[in-house]
């Protein structure tokens, strides 16, 4: 071919590294000027480089909050589309669990309740955070693999996907909470001022589950065997956590160790604020649970962010 003169790039003369840095700096200043004027909406500069994705990460997440909302809405909408029992399922499952636990732990094993709290209410107050925890854990851990087509075709902070699925679990939580309210009316049980702290404990339950969920969902992208671990954790956890019984039945010398299970702190907290003064928190154990929650949250986010960049290549 003869027409290879002007357009071949043997060694590009533009690649003067120092000069490029200067240009980048200059364009950065123009961008801030544009931003101050406020008319050009996104004169932002993005630099893509190995290991560079970290910067602006949290600002990016804020920028993608609408995507978060719409993905959460999608998951909720899809869950109840073309289902017959749909919402009913969210009612039947906790109700039956409550009945079974009340019979087994309350009637057959004759475990004591907290103070004068009716046993069904005790069970239900423990089940609320447990279902929230297990719901987020199982929804989120499959979310990345389930959204593989998005990950490999569009950029957005990947953290949006697992956290958006947590909203589905929160919707179920709202349904369950309404059931607890009915149950309290039925038994004529009146909670006191501590219920004001409930939002804080809901947040705690979400944080406690998001940490491990992020870790496992990131692992699940690489090693698909982790999806089999989740049902196991959920099944196992139901019995090692004080869902069907009060954690007061655990012998005193084991209670600190018991606090290593982060869900113990969450459930104790829920019972404390829902059951009024009847349920006491074992503070050292609670503090330990908080520590474990914080550790998992930190570790989960860290691991997620470290591996996030390679998701598209692996999913």
């Amino acid at each position, binding site marked *: *071919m003869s*027409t*290879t003169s*002007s*357009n*071949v*790039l043997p060694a*590009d003369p*533009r*690649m003067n*590294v120092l000069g*490029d840095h200067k*240009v*980048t700096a200059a*364009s950065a200043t123009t*961008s801030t000027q544009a931003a101050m004027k406020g008319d050009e*909406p*996104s*004169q*932002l*500069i*993005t*630099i*893509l*480089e*190995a*290991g*560079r*994705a970290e910067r602006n990460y949290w600002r990016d997440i804020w920028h993608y909050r*609408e*995507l978060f909302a*719409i*993905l959460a809405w*999608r998951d909720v*909408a*899809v869950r109840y*589309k*073309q289902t017959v029992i749909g919402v009913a399922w969210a009612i039947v499952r906790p109700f039956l669990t409550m009945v079974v636990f009340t019979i087994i732990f309350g009637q057959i094993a004759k475990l004591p309740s907290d103070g004068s709290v009716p046993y069904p209410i005790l069970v239900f107050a423990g089940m609320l955070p447990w279902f929230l925890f297990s719901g987020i854990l199982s929804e989120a851990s499959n979310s990345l693999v389930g*959204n593989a*087509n*998005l*990950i*490999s*075709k*569009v*950029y*957005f902070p990947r953290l949006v996907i697992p956290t958006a699925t947590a909203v589905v679990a929160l919707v179920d939580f709202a349904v369950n909470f309404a059931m607890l309210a009915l149950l309290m009316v039925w038994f004529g049980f009146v909670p006191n001022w501590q219920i004001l702290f409930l939002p804080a404990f809901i947040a705690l339950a979400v944080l406690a589950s998001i940490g491990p969920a992020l870790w496992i969902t990131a692992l699940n992208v*690489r*090693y698909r065997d982790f999806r089999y671990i989740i049902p196991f954790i959920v099944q196992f956890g139901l019995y090692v956590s004080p869902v069907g019984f009060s954690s007061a039945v655990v012998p005193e010398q084991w209670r600190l160790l018991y606090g290593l299970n982060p869900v113990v702190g969450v459930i104790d907290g829920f019972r404390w604020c829902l059951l009024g003064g009847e349920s006491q928190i074992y503070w050292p154990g609670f503090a330990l649970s908080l520590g474990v929650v914080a550790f998992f949250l930190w570790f989960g986010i860290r*691991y997620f962010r*470290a*591996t996030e*960049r*390679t998701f*598209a*290549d*692996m999913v």
Partner: protein
Amino acid sequence: MSDVVIRAEHLGKRYLIGHQSAERERYTALRDVIGRSLKGLGQSALDLVRGRQIIAGDEIEEFWALRDVSFEIRRGEVVGIIGRNGAGKSTLLKVLSRITEPTEGRVTIKGRVASLLEVGTGFHPELTGRENIYLNGAILGMTRAEIKRKFDEIVAFAEVEKFLDTPVKRYSSGMYVRLAFAVAAHLEPEILVVDEVLAVGDADFQKKCLGKMGEVAKAGRTVLFVSHNTGSVSTICEKGMLLRAGNLIADGPMSEVLSQYRGLKQSDVTAMPHLQFRGPLRGVRITSIEINGHPTAELRVVSSDDDISIGVRGRADEDIANLRFSVALFHRGLRIVTCHDGPENLPVGEFEFRCTFPARSFRPGEYTLAAGARRVAGDEWVWGTDLCSLEIIPVWGAEYDSDDIGIVNLPRRLVRSKRYAPVGNDQAGR
């Protein structure tokens, strides 16, 4: 004043590929397999702890999908990226749209990027058309207010007014694609990155999309466009970049880059490494296939002006009666044409079969080749598909329709196309 919006410097992307060395052993003992699995398990566990990528196989090979790619793109340019399959086009787009990060080098991008690597990303079959517009819009980076403002326009473009509240799983594939493209076409980013999107939909809709792309370009936005359809690239892009095996080998006006693309041959080795045949017929070994005198290990680019001559060579180990050779061309999995020679006896020794399609038989595009032989009486055959691919690139004269859409190309004189007066006028005339 420089108005560079994308600047890539020494960009590289590496993938690691694993091979199973055991496959090359003649037989495998269970003991070896167990030993290897245990070793592999230990390795995986180690990788897991270190947080490294796990690769199947015990031989790991580096593969650079992109290497040392540097370029600049200015505001308002419409750039077409061309190259063979596996040249790194899609990887480049993925890096530019932040889906995957480069292994080395860096890119500086000024402005908001929207990438369109697939039509209908994130569409959910259970949701209605209306819901999917919002979902897909948000995924592509539009704000809710923006989607609301353009909603009617999107619906009109997609022509799905009546089915807005039907779940998209009940849409015809055409409607689905139209809706998906309509959302994408109404994105208003500063930089738009598009891959292969026009490969879908019927001809009319493809035209509409091309028109829309042209509009986007005129509106002063920067567009990066990848397509195998060199015809459509050349109509909307004024600038081109040519990739080969991960390297940028040409960057300049589209017409020059295209002519260089046509010149690409030899040593452009990618894909389809082996001639593999299957079937019950023994005694016939096809050892090489060539196109216009070039071995198939080299992917061939053929001008639409050239005859396409396919040669099949090999050796017969014994005399075979009533044998018929065949060559077939496929386009996107669809068998376009098959040609045979008459059943004849094949004597022992070397053989060569040749089959030539006249120039301009097919429209520009990518085709793959299949070849084989069959004994007519005994119904024994040997057949291999995907033996090599060839691309026909457009060089049109006035005699032919210069529109690249479709597969079969017929000279204008063979096609009777004429306008007639409406039936009513016709009656009045006679």
